[in-house]
């Protein structure tokens, strides 16, 4: 009985990877450089793909391999490249100045993780198949932290990044809770994410062109 067929072992790995993903999310909260931010996001997505693959392997759910592959292609390769291009074309050098200062944001991120666990706790059932509430907790935490990061960022591009990392949380939930949704749905979702990323990229670019800055916190003409 090799460990590679043992479900407990699989769970271990998945939990470990999930933890890593969470850590990366928090790292993104504290990171000041856009380019690094993008790469952290890529790494996070990579680990997600790994999780997906693991689950696929251990639960013999072939269609999740597809999901993993798609994630690899879209979130680890395409989106980061797209964004780094943007960064170059718009010569963004200045570092991110978050609205809430870094230490406090990290603390808040920790608190949000707690919230995630509190919410997930009510889902805890010992008989639950697969990775029940642990993964859900991580997913919710990722989601909340990503959300918080969006609030906490001034630059358009970083907000988009945060949005994408937030969707990573969803992806985690999708694969770990229910071993992935039906493939076509996954496809649709990923396609949407890709298009969304592109659309927002274009928007960011046009804002930069007409507004000479991507500091969206200064876009406050429309009020009342």
């Amino acid at each position, binding site marked *: 009985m090799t460990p590679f067929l043992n479900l407990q072992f699989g769970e271990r790995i998945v939990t470990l990877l999930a933890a890593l993903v969470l850590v990366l999310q928090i790292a993104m909260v504290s990171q000041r450089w856009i380019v690094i931010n993008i790469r952290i996001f890529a790494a996070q997505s990579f680990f997600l793909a790994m999780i997906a693959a693991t689950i696929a392997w251990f639960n013999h759910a072939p269609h999740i391999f597809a999901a993993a592959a798609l994630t690899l292609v879209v979130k680890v390769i395409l989106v980061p490249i797209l964004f780094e291009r943007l960064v170059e074309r718009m010569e963004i050098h200045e570092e991110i100045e978050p609205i809430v200062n870094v230490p406090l944001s990290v603390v808040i991120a920790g608190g949000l993780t707690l919230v995630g666990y*509190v*919410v997930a706790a*009510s889902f805890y059932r010992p008989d639950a198949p697969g990775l029940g509430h642990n993964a859900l907790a991580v997913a919710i935490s990722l989601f909340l932290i990503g*959300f918080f990061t969006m609030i906490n960022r*001034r630059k358009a591009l970083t907000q988009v990044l945060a949005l994408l990392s937030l969707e990573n949380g969803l992806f985690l939930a999708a694969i770990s809770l229910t071993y992935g949704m039906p493939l076509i749905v996954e496809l649709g979702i990923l396609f949407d994410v890709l298009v969304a990323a592109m659309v927002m990229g274009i928007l960011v670019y046009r804002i930069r062109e007409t507004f000479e800055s991507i500091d969206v*916190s200064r876009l406050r*003409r429309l009020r009342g």
Partner: protein
Amino acid sequence: MISELFLSGIIVWLAGAAASLALWRRPAAARRVSCAAALAGSLLDLAASAAAIFSGTSTVIGLPFGNPVFSWAIRLDPLSAYFNLTLAVLAAAVSLYSFGYLREMEGCRNLGAFGFFYNLLLPSLALVFTASNAFFFLVAWEAMALSAFCLISFEHEKEKTRHAGVLFFIMSHAGTGLLLIAFLLLASAGGSLDFANFHLLASQMPPLEQGAVFLLFLFGFGVKAGLVPVHIWLPEAHPVAPSNISALMSGIVIKTGIYGMARVFFDFYGPPPLWMGTVVLGLGVVSALLGVLYALMEHDLKRLLAWHSIENIGIILMGFGAALMFRSLGQPNLAALALIAALYHTFNHAIFKGLLFLGAGSVVQATHTRNMEKMGGLIRRMPVTALCFLVGAVAISGLPPLNGFVSEWLTYQALLAGFGTTQSLTRLMFPIAGALLALTAALAAACFVKAFAIPFLALARSDEAAQAREASPSMRAGMAVLAVGCAALGLGATWFVRVFDPITQQALGIRASSALVMARGWALSPGTAHGGTISTAGIALLFLLAGAAFALPLAMRWRRCSVTGPAWDCGQPGLTADNEYTATAFSKPLRMIFSALYRPRREIQAEYEVSPYYPSAIRFENEIEPTFVMRIYVPLWERVMAAANRMKGIQAGSINLYLAYIFIALILLLLFGVRG
């Protein structure tokens, strides 16, 4: 038969509306068509409601259209028929008047639109009086408010007019909100929207709810009726409307509020708790007194009349209040007396207030001003209008032998009889109310001495007044109809009270008129054991006889030995319009006596050239504070708008802020929503 008449009336009105809208490019045609249609419709409605009253039955008609989710049903029971009668008589006279009145507007105004809304207002009124379920009632109610709004704002290029129209519409809509809640509370108690189902239903609700529904209805309808303190729209809106519309507004539109109260108090409620009656009586007294007191201070002729509408609504409510109290004290006969008094006064007010507004309309059209201080001497230029206005003035002052006297006398009798009905201190309310009614009536008389004398008597105070021309024949005819109505309702009182039998039968289960009529229909009595009696017909007859026997011949003889010369005026030569007594001066004593209420503000600026004893020019200006607007409504409105502007900070434009809202909502729901 009745239903055919009624429906054909409605159809004629609507057809008139459509036709005049179609003819909007040809004003003359639009005017004739719309007025003719309105007149025809009114006559049909008159026939229908008269037939309904004398048959004493109630006719139910279902309308075949509308969203089938709701029933659009009509019931023409005695109460509805009575108010329809009021509407029909007034509307007929006003439509007759409008033939001539609208001619001036040809060319400069869109008479097609006017005719459209005019012919929409009348059917919506008729439907308000006859709608037999809550939903349809509210539809008719708001349709009426809408068409009234459009007619009020007809001269919308004037700032004041727009403001008045909007104020009216907003207040009336707020009132409708109260009605909506009240009706739905009733409906949820009874499980149906049908008025037939509401009969006596309100009294079966738990006391708290019952009281709430009562107050909701009282103020919901009170807004439309012009009940103090929710009256402020009325003196703004009635004057700015075209005068024939003012006549309808004051004559019948505000009566929809009265109708609603009658419907609720005497159909939906059984014998109510005593406090309800006292509340209505108290509010009635306050409205009557404040109405007349503010009227006294006006020298805008139409505003003055508008304030008097508030006064008369107050008098009507006194009757209602007494009736309610009698019901709770178990005195159906007295309740019937009070109810008759109130409804009688409703009809009378419709007639004489309509008459007065039409008269004012002719005057305003002739002098192009509403300010009495610029009129004067019109009795020579426009004798018929003057005579009609005088009839209206005598009637509204409640002087014998015209109709106002009869209904006020009945109210007095009801209040007087109330004293004996209970041993509690409450009974003091009745005579006190009576005394204040007396004060109101006397002040009204004072006010109408002013309202008739200043515009019509003495010398013209302006060139327009001096050049004024008598109203056109159709206008005179319209006024004459109503003047005759005042006389008929006054002298024919003993005949007219029979009309109320089916109503009291329906509301209180007794037929009172036989007790009220005495001496072979010559005298009217309060129906109590040996109460006092009046005979307006007799009084009038004696006046005529005496006049014919003595006045005319003697006047003939004395004319021969009389000369006309300049007024003596205490020997001052050269009487000119400048040293006539003005309206402001006339009401000055009362302004000083009631200054606590009016808080008058006066300002005199004199310019001197040579010495302080010879001012070259003096500017005098004098105004009273509209207490309710200044003390209640303006502060309220300012608070609301300030709060609104503060609230606008929510939408500050920062996306981070917006995201934060959602985030907070999410966290809260996750923590508290999920494990609820």
